[in-house]
């Protein structure tokens, strides 16, 4: 079966072609670049919201795209159980649309942080992690200025108890040390999911870690996220 996957392009998206290219490394995937106003977004087996600076990140990263017609369709698909992945700016959009909990604030360093990091899989039953095992460490790059996850203590407890903290920054051995936390993100959180587990957002870029030749570490760990998605369709 060919899986049809939409990569939604907003004005200001800039990781959209990388995401399409990463998806096309899988033989059984038909990946389309879809303009955010296209009604066809709702007809896909899976949807990827890519990284970038949608609508110039004006007001707040992701806040304007969150109110675009695309997100109405994404919300309907999410309710039907369609796997939805938000990468970096896509994660910010899903949070601003209320499809994922919490907020993403400016990094504590006030710097755009661009580097390879390691993250630990905390929940291996979401639509994007079911091909992994809990505690597995992925090597993957980050590149963002507003990736410091924050929420109230109560909501943090609730989402942690519900397994919604999907990825945490860790060292190479999977230990969530303070020095492994690149942004000051709350509780080391690098990615979260909704209650159902079919909507996942993360700050790291799996599409930049799908071909070993493009990684200084020879990492293709990002492929595991897309492979899990395909298993969920």
């Amino acid at each position, binding site marked *: 079966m060919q899986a049809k996957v939409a990569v939604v392009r907003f004005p200001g998206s800039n990781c959209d072609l990388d995401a399409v290219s990463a998806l096309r490394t899988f033989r059984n995937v038909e990946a389309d670049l879809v303009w955010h106003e296209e009604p066809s977004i709702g007809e896909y087996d899976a949807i990827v919201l890519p990284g970038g600076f949608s609508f110039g990140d004006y007001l707040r990263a992701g806040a304007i795209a969150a109110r675009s017609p695309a997100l109405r369709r994404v919300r309907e698909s999410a309710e039907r159980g369609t796997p939805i992945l938000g990468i970096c700016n896509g994660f910010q959009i899903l*949070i*601003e649309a209320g499809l994922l909990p919490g*907020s993403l604030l*400016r990094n504590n360093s*006030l710097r755009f942080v661009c580097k390879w990091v390691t993250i630990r899989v905390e929940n291996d039953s979401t639509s994007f992690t079911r091909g992994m095992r809990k505690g597995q460490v992925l090597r993957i790059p980050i590149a963002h200025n507003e990736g410091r996850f924050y929420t109230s203590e109560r909501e943090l407890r609730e989402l942690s108890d519900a397994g919604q903290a999907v990825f945490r920054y860790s060292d190479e051995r999977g230990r969530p040390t303070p020095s492994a936390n690149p942004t000051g993100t709350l509780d080391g959180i690098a990615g979260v999911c909704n209650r159902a587990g079919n909507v996942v957002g993360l700050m790291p870029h799996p599409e930049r870690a799908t071909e070993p030749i493009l990684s200084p570490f020879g990492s293709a760990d990002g492929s595991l996220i897309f492979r899990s998605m395909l298993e969920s369709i």
Partner: protein
Amino acid sequence: MQRPQVFMVRVVVSNRDGAGDPEGDTIYRDLVSKSGFKQVKGIRTGKFLKVSVEAPDAASAKTLVSKMCDELRIYNPAAHSITVEV
């Protein structure tokens, strides 16, 4: 009934206390404190929106802007607090 007028409504969005404010902290620590303004005890940054609203009176202008901020999520309630003033 009063004729509609245009009111200027000021909206300030800032991080809640627990959410931290690295920009405000840096301005305070590395600029203000180091420049001798010892009476200043803290700085918080935020985002400022000046909204022109046609409304019959100031109170309804404020109510409309508050509603707009909630509905369009001009702020993220998970991290921000907001003040609305006419």
